[in-house]
């Protein structure tokens, strides 16, 4: 009798715990520190005050590109055109419950030609050869990232003039070509973002853990908005503007281990904004549409750092 009692109790306990821990899908939350070490380091002089320039030596090639991105983005674009956001693969966008993404309108989107072409300089990824496995003698481990995959990125994709231009660019011209590429993609997505320029109105955005001060920004076609974005939190963040399809397209690997090691295209990206720093940029809305802005550091987005800028009637329900 006792054994059976323990068996039944045991099975209930096992089933219940498994459901409680895994099945119930508790939301991901993370509390942040009350102080930022980076602020201390600035005070101690170990880090310079003010924004630090980005290291030019790090080229985009370093991060490589996932070969499936293009296909996933194309698929996402098609789904957009057919009206409605479908989550591809396991792209569960788990948003924290109060992320504030609400629907307006019925979400008919015309995401023209966000073709998702990958253009990364001349497309040659120079990865250290393969990954030699460790031998008994303790030889050096060459952990050079994925074996295969993005070792041979040729220029593919729909006829895209900028892509051809970029392919011929040499090292110095690469950065410029990338910039051209970005602007071209922006034109096709309906949103062009520059570092400065004339603007019609200003918007102040604060980023903190784990949200933006304004998660729903309204815009009018033709408007130019100057954004002042500051990091009001304790942790460095990233800032990106992406088209809906591009964001959905990379969702399939948003929780993969190599997330930080790969590149993904964005309409605008500032890879690091440290606590206390502030950046400005001007966004020009060319046509009706909706675009996402977010911080794509691991789990920041899933915990709520994602917002939407949309023209009237175009806002998408997430």
């Amino acid at each position, binding site marked *: 009798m006792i054994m059976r009692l323990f068996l039944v109790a045991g099975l209930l306990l096992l089933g219940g715990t498994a459901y409680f*821990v895994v099945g119930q899908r508790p939301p991901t939350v993370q509390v942040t*520190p009350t102080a930022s070490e980076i602020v201390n380091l600035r005070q101690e002089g170990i880090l310079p005050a003010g924004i630090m320039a980005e290291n030019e030596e790090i080229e985009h090639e370093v991060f490589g590109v996932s070969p499936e991105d293009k296909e996933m983005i194309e698929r996402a674009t098609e789904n957009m055109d057919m009206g409605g956001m479908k989550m591809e693969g396991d792209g569960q966008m788990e948003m924290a419950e109060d992320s504030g993404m609400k629907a307006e309108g019925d979400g008919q989107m015309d995401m023209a030609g966000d073709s998702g072409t990958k253009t990364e300089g001349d497309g040659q990824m120079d990865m250290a050869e393969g990954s030699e*496995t460790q031998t008994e003698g303790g030889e050096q481990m060459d952990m050079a990232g994925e074996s295969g995959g993005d070792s041979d990125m040729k220029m593919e994709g729909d006829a895209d003039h900028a892509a051809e231009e970029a392919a011929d660019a040499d090292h110095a011209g690469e950065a410029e070509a990338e910039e051209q590429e970005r602007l071209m993609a922006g034109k096709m997505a309906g949103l062009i973002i520059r570092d400065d320029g004339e603007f019609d109105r200003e918007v102040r955005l604060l980023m903190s853990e784990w949200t933006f001060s304004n998660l729903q920004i309204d815009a009018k076609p033709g408007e130019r908005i100057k954004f002042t974005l500051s990091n009001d939190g304790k942790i460095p963040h990233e800032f990106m503007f992406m088209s809906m399809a591009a964001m959905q397209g990379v969702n399939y690997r948003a*929780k993969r281990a190599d997330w930080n090691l790969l590149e993904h295209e964005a309409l605008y990206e500032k890879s690091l904004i440290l606590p206390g720093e502030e950046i400005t940029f001007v966004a020009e809305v060319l046509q009706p549409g909706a675009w996402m802005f977010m911080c794509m550091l691991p789990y920041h987005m899933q915990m709520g750092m994602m917002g939407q800028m949309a023209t009237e009637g175009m806002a998408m329900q997430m």
Partner: protein
Amino acid sequence: MASELDAVRMGEMPHWEPADVLGTMTLSNLLFSNDYRHIALKGILTSVVMLGLGGLMAMLFRTELALPDLQLIDARPYMSLMTLHGMLMVFGFIIPLVIALNYYMMPKVLGTGQLLLAGAAQWSYWTLILAAVALVIARPDFTWTFYPPMSLRVGGDLVWLGYVAIALVAVSEFLAGAVLMRNGWEAATRLGWGKLPLMGWGAISEGILLLGSTPILGLVGIVMLTDWLELTAMFDPARGGDVMTFMYMFWFYGHPAVYLPLMPAIAVLYTLLPRFLGRPVWSYWSAVIAFSLLTVLGFIVYPHHFQPAENVSGLLQRAAQLLTLAIFIPSTLHVFNWIASLWSDEIPRSARRAIPFKFLIASIFFLMLGGVTAYVNAQIATDSAFVHNTYFVPAHFHAMFAGFMANMAMAGIYFLYPYFTGRMYSQVLGNLHFWSWQIGIFTKVMMMYYLGYVYFPRWVVDYLDLPQWSGAQLALTGGAYLIGLGFIVFVVNMMWSASRGAKATDDPWAVDAEPGAGAAPVPAE
């Protein structure tokens, strides 16, 4: 040194009568009885359930890790699974189980006839139940070593129950230490220190470890709670605290913690081995010295757990390294003793057949495996290279916890089975359990060592698709499934045999020596 003395000291004489203790237990016995057999059985059964629960957690996250880029379980539930696995296995399965085996065996081996401080054992049990409930409700994802400030910030409203669970575990273990100490000490003073059975030495050593280390665990749990409530800021650097304070405090418990299941398992081994062999172990005093040395050293080697956190490698780190290297000496004394005992004379047929004996031998194998490879864990240079926080560390402690202690716990359960059910278990199922476990544990441990050597990180829900990582993870998962299968076979065996097994003979472990082999049960003077 009379042979009869050795027979008593080494626990060679049969002490128990097969009886259906388990079948005649009522619900009231289960909940309230202070009879040592009821308390011990309660502990054993509960620990087996905890093994099942901790094992289920492992099966789930092992499935997630079987292949790279599987996204079956998200990061936070994955870490909850891992935290629960670690805590349930260490605090809920292995420590209480080996202690419960000691509760069952001490009264007869030490000659008391009853378990002294049985009330404390009762309280210890229920406190642990409370801790387990609190832990599961909290479903914390802060790993079983809950380093702050991360552990203070994992979020979730009920995480504080996890800290409470830690404090309750400390209380439960402290009480268990009191019980062991009391029984061991009473026997030592009654029989004389030179005549105390080795199980008694084990009980006293374990008592010292428990009584000495658990108070600080309780303190750590309470301070974590007050830090979380923001009443204090001892461990949170953002509010003026210091993480190293936590490291020193926690690991002062944390290192003896790993010997908490080891000592009683060794005590059981010293009690079982002579029984099966029909002769005393090779050396009594070697065992006593080994117990004592391990108890002393166990308290002073703990800085090796956070060695790579320090910028310098000064006197403290060097001393920790030296002592950590030295601590494998007492364990080696034990192994030498056991192998010498096995080698000195014929191993009876009855022993070779016995399932508990097989588990005992397997546990010696894994103690060697886990212990010798720890030679590179102990050294600062290799630790700072490929050992620290790669899979090399869980490889070591799984070889110990699963390979030595779990195997030894199973040996104890199979050994006592006829004594508390009156029947023998199924030999076929027993063998099936044994072999699936050994193959599973060996595969798991060796794959983990390999993965550690190639820098596979700990605590990751997903990993890069590197060839040296993926294949090994898949094999590891296979080994884990095999262990799970063995566990199911074990449960089936236990339940089926309790009502349908062959009735146990008067001395189910009677030594069946081969004729003329010279393996007389009592060696000539």
